[in-house]
């Protein structure tokens, strides 16, 4: 690492660390936007493993997000104890499952579902796979929506509320904290938590990319038959990709549930899956900085613009309200970026090209 890049990374790190403290002054809503952006980065990084590395188009990714979120929500809210008397007897103070257990459970469950989805779809190519994963996402959502009778498990469209905020090592980050005279709002604490998770995920993704598994995934993406001929076990590796990506989704889901305190099937619509795919592809598929850029751009930018939308709304007689404007911007961004840069905003350098373009010396 050269001195220049050390300085650059240090600057970025300092900026990221100070960001919530600055945003806090403008109101917690701004920090929330940053939090959600980080959460989307986490999701996009997870999907990038499936779509970017292994080249398997997954349009139902949000299902894993939902599985993680509902695992956390059910195990850390009064909903289950209110519904089942025997549970209430077992947990007189309500269910407050430790986060570590929930994380393992949520991530594991999502991972298992990922493999379960992957197994029957291994033989499918490209678009068939896309539509099956999409169907899987819808199935999960319909079940979440309807599992409120005959036995009320998910509370249906009403969703689950009063979910505990995150606690670990005796710290409850749902409350504000004062450290050395500095006041950290709860949203800022979540920001640091998500930032840490994003960093870990980047590290994992980066190491995966360089590893034997990662290289095998990319070989499968480029040419499955050739990869098979080279002795790569395509079946196991595809399943690994599905499971690994799903695990990321599960963890993000648990984080989302604790952050929002409320979850309902509405948050896990097909549109969300599509948005996450769009983030990965817009940014630069399979390229970590690009994926992060895409996620931040698509999640945060429209939110920020929403604050500027007030005057526009009065100008257009209420036809362009904030949510419509947000949707319009996302759509326009997706179409125009793809038209101008079909390989994404920040694509990975093409293999082989850099060699042939290098000056002959």
């Amino acid at each position, binding site marked *: 690492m050269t001195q220049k890049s050390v300085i650059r990374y240090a600057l970025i790190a300092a900026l990221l660390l100070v960001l919530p403290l600055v945003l806090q002054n403008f109101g917690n809503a701004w920090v929330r936007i940053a939090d959600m952006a980080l959460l989307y980065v986490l999701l996009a990084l997870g999907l990038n493993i499936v*779509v970017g590395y292994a080249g398997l*188009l997954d349009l139902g990714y949000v299902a894993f997000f939902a599985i993680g979120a509902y695992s956390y929500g059910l195990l850390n809210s009064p909903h289950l104890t209110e519904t089942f008397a025997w549970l209430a007897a077992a947990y007189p103070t309500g269910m407050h499952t430790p986060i570590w257990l929930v994380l393992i459970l949520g991530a594991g469950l999502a991972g298992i579902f990922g493999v379960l989805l992957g197994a*029957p*779809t291994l*033989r*499918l*190519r*490209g*678009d*068939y796979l*896309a*539509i*099956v994963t*999409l*169907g*899987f996402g*819808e*199935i999960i959502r*319909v*079940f979440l*929506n*309807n599992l409120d009778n*005959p036995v009320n498990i998910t509370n249906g469209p009403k969703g689950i509320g009063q979910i505990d905020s995150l606690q670990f090592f005796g710290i409850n980050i749902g409350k504000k904290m004062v450290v050395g005279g500095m006041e950290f709002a709860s949203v800022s604490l979540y920001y640091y938590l998500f930032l840490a998770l994003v960093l870990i995920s980047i590290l994992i993704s980066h190491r995966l990319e360089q590893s034997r598994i990662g290289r095998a995934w990319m070989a499968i993406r480029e*040419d*499955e*038959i*050739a990869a098979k001929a080279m002795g790569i076990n395509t079946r196991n590796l595809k399943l690994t990709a599905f499971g690994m990506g799903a695990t990321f989704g599960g963890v993000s889901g648990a984080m989302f549930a604790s952050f929002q305190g409320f979850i309902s099937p509405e948050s896990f619509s*097909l*549109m969300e899956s*599509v948005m996450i*795919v*769009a983030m990965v*592809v*817009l940014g630069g*598929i399979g390229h970590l900085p690009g994926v992060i850029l895409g996620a931040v751009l698509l999640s945060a930018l429209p939110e920020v613009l929403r604050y500027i939308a007030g005057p526009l709304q009065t100008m257009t007689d209420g*036809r*362009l309200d904030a949510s*419509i404007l947000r*949707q*319009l911007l*996302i*759509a*326009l*961004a*997706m*179409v125009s970026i*793809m*038209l101008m840069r*079909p*390989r994404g905003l920040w694509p990975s350098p093409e293999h082989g090209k850099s060699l042939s373009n290098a000056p002959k010396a």
Partner: protein
Amino acid sequence: MDILVQQVINGLVLGSMYALIALGYTMVYGIINLINFAHGEVMMVGALTSWTVIGLLRPAHPDWPGYVILLIALLVACVVAAVLNFIIEKIAYRPLRNSPKLAPLITAIGMSILLQTLAMIIWKPNFKSYPTLLPSEPFNVLGAVITPTQVMILVFTAVSLALLTWLVNFTKLGRAMRATAENPRVAGLMGVKPDVVISATFVIGAVLAAIAGVMYASNYGTAQHAMGFLPGLKAFTAAVFGGIGNLAGAVVGAILLGLIESIGAGYIGDWTGGVLGSHYSDIFAFVVLIIVLTLRPSGLLGERVADRA
């Protein structure tokens, strides 16, 4: 027994609407290998356009019979949808024809959101009640009922399918379309202009989608900006079910899907002892799809294509 007949009739009606949409998907996919996500939205635009036309015509000419107004609205909807789809293809898909595979897909998804949003701005987001222009007195068939609107849907679908079959199999354009789907490069060498063929495909698909939109709105009596999404998705599922790229497959897949959905919705409560209700009907499509594709990865009538590098 009469419940079964009723569900079969409903399933056929539903399936024929899916078929009209599925054909658009499958034709486009067959020629340029693109899942045109915006196709459901073209159907929605068709429905809403016809709603506006009906709203304008009815007060102006109260003496005109309902079917005349409906026919005029249908024609206008077809033209608007065709022009729209033509423009979409030209500005959004054509420049991306040789880019990485996911790029046009993302553009198509973006287009779908864009059209929905624009429709929301133009027509406002509320549900509009779609007037019943045909007599509402139902006919009795084997103990079940079928409304004139449903009869109209079946007739229109049959006529459209017959016309499409004639167009694809017995005209010069149809031959060019089949040739381009088979091998675009060789078709080009034989004097087929791929751009013209692709534009024509989008226009034909849009006309079929607009017909489906008008039928859908008259059948359910409502129209709204988000109405195209789920039928679009199901229709695509039907196209994959039947083997994508295959016209007959799309129709077979769509009719089967409609039947499965309505019969399943009618009986699932009895079968599962009331545990699962008819609100699960939306997932039948996907469950069936996953099972079929697992057992027969290229769809019911799809050819088994060898893997190409």
